[in-house]
Structures are given as structure tokens and as C-alpha cells.
């Protein structure tokens, strides 16, 4: 079975302080701004806090015209910024809208399952869990205008 590690969120443990987002933006952009600079987002929804983050379904791999996006052996989907031509196809097509674009940076970015957000959370609201890749993929492919 091929697996991939994704971030799991327990809203009951979240204090809303967004340490995860700050840690994430530090990984991707060397700043502590969080928010639109972060791949993981904790959002206040109607029913409480929700996490918006990549589940590594890989649809973006097939959207990329220059094959700048690939799946590593670990199952994680990553972007090669040297190849990216900034077309935003992955940003627009992401079914969870978690392929991100930061202000004034044309190359998108996304969760790489590095776990920095997990260790940054003082309350243990986040964890990296291993899931079956096939189940993740099945949820998205045929709904994305590809058939």
C-alpha cells in the first residue's frame, strides 16, 4: 500500500493563536507573517475552527504544463520552483484551494508535510498521520473536469 503523510487537525485543542501558520510561513518565505504566507491555514468557520491544507491528492501534478510538480517517494507532492513558469493552473484547479500564492511571489507554494506546524503547536492540535494514497486520489480526480 502506498501511503502519504498529511496533517490532521483537532479543533478542540486549538487556541487560535496560529503558531502553526507562523512556523509554516517561516519554512516557505522566511517570515513569521502567517496568513497568506502560510500553506496551512486555520480559518474560523460557521461551526468553529477548520484547517485548510493540502491532502497530497496530486491533481496539481497533472495540471502542471512543465512537470514542475511531482510526488516524492514518501508520497508528498512538491513543486520544483526552478521549473515553475507561474501559470497558476495548479492554484486555480486545486479542489481544496490549498495551492497557495503569496503576495509578490509568482511561484505557488504548498504543504510539504515537513511537520514544522505540528511541532510549533503548543497544544497538540496538529499531527502528521499516514493515510492510503489511493483513497485520497479517488476523492478528487473525476470531479475536476477531467472527464
Amino acid at each position, binding site marked *: 500500500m502506498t501511503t502519504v503523510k498529511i496533517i490532521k487537525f483537532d479543533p478542540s485543542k486549538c487556541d487560535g493563536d496560529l503558531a502553526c501558520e507562523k512556523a509554516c510561513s517561516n519554512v516557505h518565505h522566511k517570515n513569521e507573517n502567517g496568513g497568506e504566507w502560510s500553506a496551512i491555514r486555520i480559518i474560523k468557520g460557521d461551526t468553529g475552527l477548520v484547517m485548510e491544507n493540502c491532502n497530497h491528492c*496530486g*491533481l496539481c*501534478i*497533472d*495540471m*502542471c*504544463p*512543465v*512537470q514542475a510538480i511531482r*510526488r516524492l517517494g514518501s508520497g508528498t507532492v512538491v513543486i520544483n520552483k526552478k*521549473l*515553475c*513558469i*507561474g*501559470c*497558476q*493552473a495548479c*492554484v*486555480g*484547479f486545486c*479542489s481544496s*484551494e490549498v495551492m497557495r*500564492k503569496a*503576495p*509578490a511571489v*509568482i*511561484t505557488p507554494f504548498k504543504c510539504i508535510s515537513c511537520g514544522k506546524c505540528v511541532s510549533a503547536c503548543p497544544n497538540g492540535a496538529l499531527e502528521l498521520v499516514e493515510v492510503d494514497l489511493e483513497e485520497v*486520489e*479517488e476523492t478528487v*480526480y*473525476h470531479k*475536476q*473536469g*477531467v*472527464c
Partner: protein
Amino acid sequence: MSDENCKAEAKLIGNRATGFQTGNTEHKWDLAALRASHVVLAEYAYEKKPIVKGYAGRTLYVDLTKKEIREIPITEDMKKKFTGGRGFGLKLLWDSINPSTRWDSDENGLVLTAGPMCGSTQYPGFGKSLALSVSPSTDIICDSNAGGYFAPYMKFAGFDAVQIHGKADEDVIVLIDGVEGKVRIETAPGEETNSHVLAEQLTHLYAFEDSEKGKQGVAVVSAGTGAENSYWGCLNISFYDIRRKVARLKQHGRGGLGTVLRHKKIKAVVSRIDEFDATTNDAIDLDKIAEIGANYHKEMRDLDKDQCNMRTVGTGHLVEIMDAYDLLPTENYRFGQHPKAPKIYSPHFYKLWTQVIPDGCWYGCTMACAKAADGYTVMTGPYKGHKVTVDGPEYETLGCSSNMSIWDPLWVLEFNFYCDTYGLDTISTGTAIAFYMEMYEYGILNKERCGGLELCFGNADAMMELLHRMAAGDDDEFVKIAGKGARRVKDWLKIKNWGDQQLIEDCGMESKGLEYSEYVTKESLAMQGGYGLTLKGPQHDEAWLIFMDMVNNQIPTFADKAEALHYFPMWRTWFGLNGLCKLPWNDVEPADNAETGEPAKVPGHVQNYVDIQNAITGWNVTKEDLILQSERAYNWQRSMNVWMGRGRRADDWIPYRSMGPVTRLEYVSRQEMYDKQMVEDIGVPADSLEAMSIEDRMKMMYHYRQNRYQKLADAVYFRRGWTHNGVPTVQKMISLGFADETKMLEMLQQKIDEDEAAGLNTWGGDYVGDEKPPTDDAKYWEKW
């Protein structure tokens, strides 16, 4: 296809780790030997410079006869008047040809252009090139657009356009080398001429390094042996597909530009680069474009599958729609639907086209309509048995098959493949052959007169044999004249005195010498104008008004139709000035489009284009300014048509087959509808209709519809700011900003004076009763 199968297929291809296998025939070429055989005839080293706000800032001039290469700077005045792309092409040709220049004249130029928005990657359809030249079919300038990587790479290499004049002594390649900053004319004796092989060879030969990135950095413009031996030559523009690992092809189809290429003995024009990214086009506000682009991609993600399904079947989805509305041309436009048409509906091609590949012909195009069938086994001709990738078929190619009554998807692919690799425009080829097939049915042509070919409707073998013989340079009289197109064959049939001359004239679907594209227009007057009142000849590039006119009845009056025949041709022209594809404008529409004031214009997407042009160039234009940009180029091109002797009312003639029923069979096939029109539109008393023969009804309808078309032309000329005879007025040109273009203004005044002397400055329609022409003022334009 069921969801289950769909999912299975998506997973099968979508998750491959090592790249998709086309299963195509593998070729082994001695690339070193090919390279060694090239002799450099001329070389020009240029300074590599960055793009500034969408412009390279210079164009490239190449003369093959004189072996001269030089660069020409672009002025601010040229940008203001002509914007870029097709506009630049018109200006470059105006400066280098004369009114008697024909397609094969030494001074005729083949111009390939980009545009200021061309090459940006954040919004779909931003990679089009616009090609222009004097057409062998029409004797005036033909412009034609195509996808592929050539134009963006040419611009990134350093040039907004290249114009190629003269003629080489032997087959040459013109290389625009953005890697080394050189332009070269070099001989190319060893490469194949036909495009599917040549594009592949040159992609490998000119890649700056032996890698996928290297091959992606090459774009090839080529034609083929069909283009050498006919007037239907298209230009194939390559784009290397890194998943299929094949150099794929998009076409500048119309007007015989590939014929011009091969006449100049150009085997290929190549542009190559080693680097580009999202910033190369130097937009002043890249974030803005990225935001608009990402929002558009979301629309595509959410709406396309329930609107046009472009991502899955491309423009092929139109076949079933056109068939349903009696608009799919069958048997040379005699009918608009056919019992066998469902055999070529798009679901049949779903299985043939490889899915889940980002099939854009330029980076970032998520409309992805450039579908392809991989591993297709060629059934006939010189490549019989080869496995190849076939680009398309698109709707027009499918419409040609329908017109020739060919209903097998595999024969459609065969026709499509050979047209592409031989460098033949599928539209002109299919439309003209459908005409020959109808003439065959009437006995005006027969096996003996067709060089031994049984060219009847549905005979795919004979049709393919004609293409193979044409491409091989067969000197049979019919094969030679057939390739010159419907207009020349009409003239040939008249000289031979075979058949009724009026029937021949009415049936052959050409205007200005160019064959029609694939829509039945008999019941849409506005679309008759959309084909006839055009610059380069009958094509769907300028206006597609059938649904607005016929189905939705949104433009009932002559003035309404004239307004549509002003706005839409201007709007559609704009894409060509900027190096863009039109399809993303309205082949997916915003979810709230129907609630806007003018849904046919898709205002939300128009605003996207306004915002993106400003974000690239730093201008501050409005949507009205976009139309003004187009009006300048459009009127300039019409004026050049006038200059070259083909831009007046008589030249906007269209064959009656596009207006109404030519034959009794057509009338009878929709007799209820036509009889109703006889009473309601023409005014024949219902009780006297029965006494009229079908022939008499047809004759009355013929005169009514001819007159109606002339009235439409009157309204359109008036709306566009032209004289009664269709000549752009000096006042109109000055209002567009051409006050200092003395040579053009003097030419127009002279032509208008000539028309006045000849009594041609009068309306063409016959107005009776309460009907009124657009104005009674004989010199209405003098008050503008």
C-alpha cells in the same frame, strides 16, 4: 463514459511515474549528419535585450534573395496605431509590398508576429502567433492565427515579428536563436519536408541541450509537400509535449500561407530559447494577472464540464450541437444534419484522445482543447503502418468530414493526420473536395475528368488518394487544378463548359477565393454577413452570430445585425493584435454571465482582458479602447484590400448555397419551413402558393434573399464608417488616428472618387414601400 470508467482512466494515466508512452513508431535519425549538411548562407548577430512591458521593441527583416538580415526598431507611433500582432503584420506588409504584389512575387512577405500580451502564462490562451501574407487563394492579405510555442519564443528571443521576403535557391531554415543571439539562414538538404517528421527532427536538432527542457525550448514553423503543390498550404507550429515526448502541431490554416512558405523554399522557421519564466513578458503588475488568471482557472475547473466540455473533447463538442440545430454542413452544405452524424459525435473521440494531460498549446492554458490521439496507425499513403500522434480533430475538421459524408472516426483521423503533415488546411481542403463531390454527383465531374478518382460523397479512399497524389506532385490536370481550390475549379469547369454555370457558381462554397468554414448559414442572415462581409474571406474568425440571430432572435433588424457585425468582428480582431486565443473568452462563461446586461459579449471576461492589458503594458485602457485598437487594424486591412483591388461590395459576394436552397432537393428537404417563409417573409398569399411550382418558389426566394443580403451590406458598411461601396472613408481613418498616413488617405480618396465617377456610391439593396436605406444623404461621411 461512466464515472467508474472515468475514474479508472484518470488514475491509469494521471498517476504514471515515468511518463506516458504514445506507442508511436520510433525513428532513428543521424542528427549529426543532418546538422553537418547545413551550410550557413547568412548570419546576423544581435544584442539580446529583455522584454519591456510586453514588447521586444524591434522586428526582424529577412530577405532570402539578397541573403539580408536586419532588425527594425518599433516606434511608439506604431504601437499606438497598430498595437501589435496582426496590426504589426499589416503595417510591415504595407511598407514592403505594392498593390500588384501576388503570393508568389519576390517582394511578398511572410510575416509571423506575436503581440504584447503573447507569452504571458497566467491566463489561458496567451501563446498565439499571427501569420500574414498575400494569399494565393484571394490575392489579398490573409491573416491566420495558431497556437504552439513559436511566437512567444520569437518574442523572448528578441523580436515582436519576423518578415521574410524573397526566395531561396534551395531549401533553407530561418533560425531565430535566442540562445546565442543570432539569426541564421542555413540550408537544410537532408530533413524531411512533411511536418510530423520535420518538426520532430528539428526539435531534436536545435534543442540547446539534450534534455526535455532543451526540446521544450524549440518551436518549428513548417508546411509540407501538400503545401508545395496546392493553394491550401497551412503553417504548422510545433510545441513539444513533455508527457507524450512528441513535437505536436497547431495550424495557421487559412489562406495558403504554407504555400507561400514552400514557394520561398523555406523548409522551416525555428525560434529557440533556453530560459523563460513567469516574469519574462515584463508585466508591470504580475500579481494582478495571477489573481485574474487563478480566478479564471477556477471557473474552468467548476464550469467547463457542464458548459462546453472543452477540457475533455475540445471543440469537437460542437458536432452534436450543430447537428441538432440543422447547422452541421453535410454533403457540401446542402443539408444541416445527417442520420449518420452521431457516428462522429464527440463521445466517439473521447476514447481516441488521450485524457488527463494538460493539453494547452501554450503554457497555462487550462482550457486544454488541443486534444490528441496517440499511437494512431496510419491506413494509407507514404506513412501507412506508422504509428503517429494526431493533433485534433477539431470541430472544423469534423465538419469537413461531415461535408464529404465521411462518418468513420478513423477516417477523420486519417484525413486530419495527412492534412497536417502535408501542410494542408483541413478547412479549405475539405470544403473544396465536398464541392467536387457534389459536382461528381451531378455528373459535371466524373471518374475520367477526375484523373481516375471516383470522387463521390463518402468515398474516403478516393479523397485520400487525391491528397496523396497532390502531395506527390502528380501532374494530372484535375489533381493540379483541384489543389488550387473551389474558385479555380469553378473557372476551370466553365472553360471546359461542363455543367450549368450558375449551378456551379452557387454550389462552390468560396468567397474572395477562400473556402468557407463549416457552418450552414442559410437561415441566419447575420452569419451570411459574418462570412461575406469579412476581410480575408469566409471564416468564423470574425463573427459567429448564428445563435444570437437564428436561435435566440436577439438581433432582428438590419441595424441590429449591423451593430453585431461591427462589434463582434472588432472584438475578435483584438485577440489577434495581442497574440491571444479567442476561445477562453466565451467557451467557458462566468456562472453569472446570463444575468449581465449583454451576455453575448461575456462582460466579465472582457474586463479580464482590459485589466490584463493594462497590467502588462502599463496603459490605462477601457473596454472601448480595446475596440478602438481593433478598428484601427480592421480598417487598415480593409483599406489594403481596396488598395489591392479586392475591398468593395462586389468582392463581398457570397455563393447562394450560403444564403438559401440552390437545388430542388434542398428546398423539398425543408419545404414546410420554406413555404412558411414564402408567405410570412416574402408576402406570397397563402392560397396562391400551391399554384406555384417548387422552381418558381425557389426563384422568388433567390431574389428575395439576394436583395436581403445587399441590404445587410448597406447597413454594415454604414455602421463601419465606409462608403456605399464598402470603402473606408478618409473621415473614418482620420477619426481612428491616421491623419498623418498621407499615402493611405490619398489612395482611399482616389478610390472613392473612382467609385463616384462609376456611379457605385449608391446603396445595393432594393428598398420598397416603407423600407429605408441607412441614410438618404449621398455623401453622408463628409459630415463626420
